[in-house]
């Protein structure tokens, strides 16, 4: 329908400032939606890594402590007990070499501290996956006072604290996104209203000579759709950019827990698709609403 497209283009151009504002607001709000989605995916991916299913860590006493280091026999005792415990789904032992490797990675940003650490100073540990996560405290208590056990760490606590923080961030971002989506909707609605007003004479004549309702409506609806879609495309670009920004930030912050919060290309693509669909929905919704409210039949 070339008439509709022509009309739409001319409507958009007449109100270019408003069109620009609507497109930008759609872009910003959808970018925020995309950011919230990415953060959500990144965090849930990182949570998997952080936990790796591990809910409990039993550290054995390292050398260089005021009390004696764990003996091989004590370590074997813990291992045996874990093998027999029905609550333990699986576990692995992290020896001195791997502990040191982990620490090196962990403190890669603090080389002076690294030089202080020696492999033997670091505690070896058992990383334990439970059958029922809520049994962590009960199991932990059993090992806490066993000879050679240095400390029991509940991984869940640290991760949960982190999750609370990222939850707050997601809520803030999502709230901003919702507010801005409302603004975007009103801006598109308005662009349509102004376009309808600018074309009121044409519309009156069209009704008079018997143009069908859809013939009259379609150019205005297309206008809203295009604004929503163009905004969504810009936001899609921003989502791609955010992927890079996040890696950059992670690389520079070297934020320990967050280093796993990278999202896969697949997840970014899904987010981009969601953003574009949302843009189309907003554009169409605003159009339908605008045409309904401001165009009599």
């Amino acid at each position, binding site marked *: 329908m070339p008439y509709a497209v022509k009309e739409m283009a001319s409507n958009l151009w007449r109100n270019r400032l408003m069109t620009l504002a609507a497109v930008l607001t759609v872009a910003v709000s959808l970018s925020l939606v995309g950011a919230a989605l990415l953060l959500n995916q990144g965090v849930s991916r990182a949570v998997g890594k952080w936990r790796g299913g591990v809910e409990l860590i039993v550290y054995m006493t390292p050398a260089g402590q005021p009390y004696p280091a764990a003996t091989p026999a004590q370590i074997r005792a813990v291992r045996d007990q874990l093998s027999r415990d029905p609550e333990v789904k699986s576990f692995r032992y992290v020896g001195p070499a791997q502990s040191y490797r982990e620490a090196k990675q962990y403190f890669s940003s603090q080389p002076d501290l690294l030089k202080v650490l020696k492999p033997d100073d670091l505690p070896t540990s058992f990383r334990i996956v439970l059958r029922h996560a809520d049994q962590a405290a009960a199991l932990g208590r059993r090992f806490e006072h066993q000879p050679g056990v240095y400390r029991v760490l509940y991984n869940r606590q640290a991760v949960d604290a982190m999750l609370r923080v990222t939850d707050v961030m997601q809520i803030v971002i999502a709230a901003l996104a919702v507010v801005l989506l409302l603004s975007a909707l009103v801006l598109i609605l308005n662009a349509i209203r102004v376009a309808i007003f600018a074309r009121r004479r*044409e519309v009156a*004549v069209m009704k008079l*000579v018997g143009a069908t309702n859809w013939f009259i409506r379609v150019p205005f609806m297309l206008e809203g759709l295009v604004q929503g879609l163009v905004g969504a495309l810009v936001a899609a670009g921003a989502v791609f950019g955010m992927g890079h920004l996040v890696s950059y930030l992670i690389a520079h912050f070297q934020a320990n827990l967050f280093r796993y919060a990278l999202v896969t290309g697949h997840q970014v693509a899904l987010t981009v698709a969601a953003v574009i669909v949302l843009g189309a929905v907003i554009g169409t919704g605003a159009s339908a609403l605008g045409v309904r409210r401001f165009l009599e039949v």
Partner: protein
Amino acid sequence: MIELQNVTKTYNHGAVIALRNCSVSIAKGEFVFLVGPTGSGKSTLLRLVLREELPDQGTIWVAGKNVCQLSRWKVPYLRRNIGCVFQDFRLLPTKTVFENVAFALEVIGRPRHVIAAQVPQILDLVGLARRRDALPHQLSGGEQQRVAIARAFVNRPLILLADEPTGNLDPDTSEDITRLLDRINRTGTTVVMATHNASIVDRMRRRVVALDQGRIMRDEARGVYGHV
């Protein structure tokens, strides 16, 4: 062609009664003057025929259809049978004479070659063939009204409604416009013209339907304006 049966129309939830129990029947090919003092309901009657409004009571038949029971999406097709002209011309100021007339065909989906054939023909009929590229503001009021009539008539409707088409025009120009409507009526089109112009009504001696306060007071075959 047009038949109103006991039509009552109110506005503002019954606060204003625009038409009271009106019945009138207009046959194909008639030329009818609708007269009456201001607020007597002339425009309301025309709007009902166009189905811009629905009556409170009564039935209205236009071109063989009961417009009160016409579903919404069919209204545009009804309107393609009715041409309309108003006091204020309602031309599109940014379009030329040709484009204004062509617009009426474009928006009902007529193909290009039909437009290219019919528009010059109708401009010839209204005597504006030589001004086809002028913009409305470059025309006199009488010429603008001719364009409006061309637009209303280009799709060869069965009915032409004119609501005070000479209200903005001087007596000479008004005379011209009425003569043009008369010429269109002679092609078989039913013409209904609401007017305050007593001298035109008196000179033409056509059917006159006189309204007052929403009631049909007179319906004479070869009537005059009269002072109600």
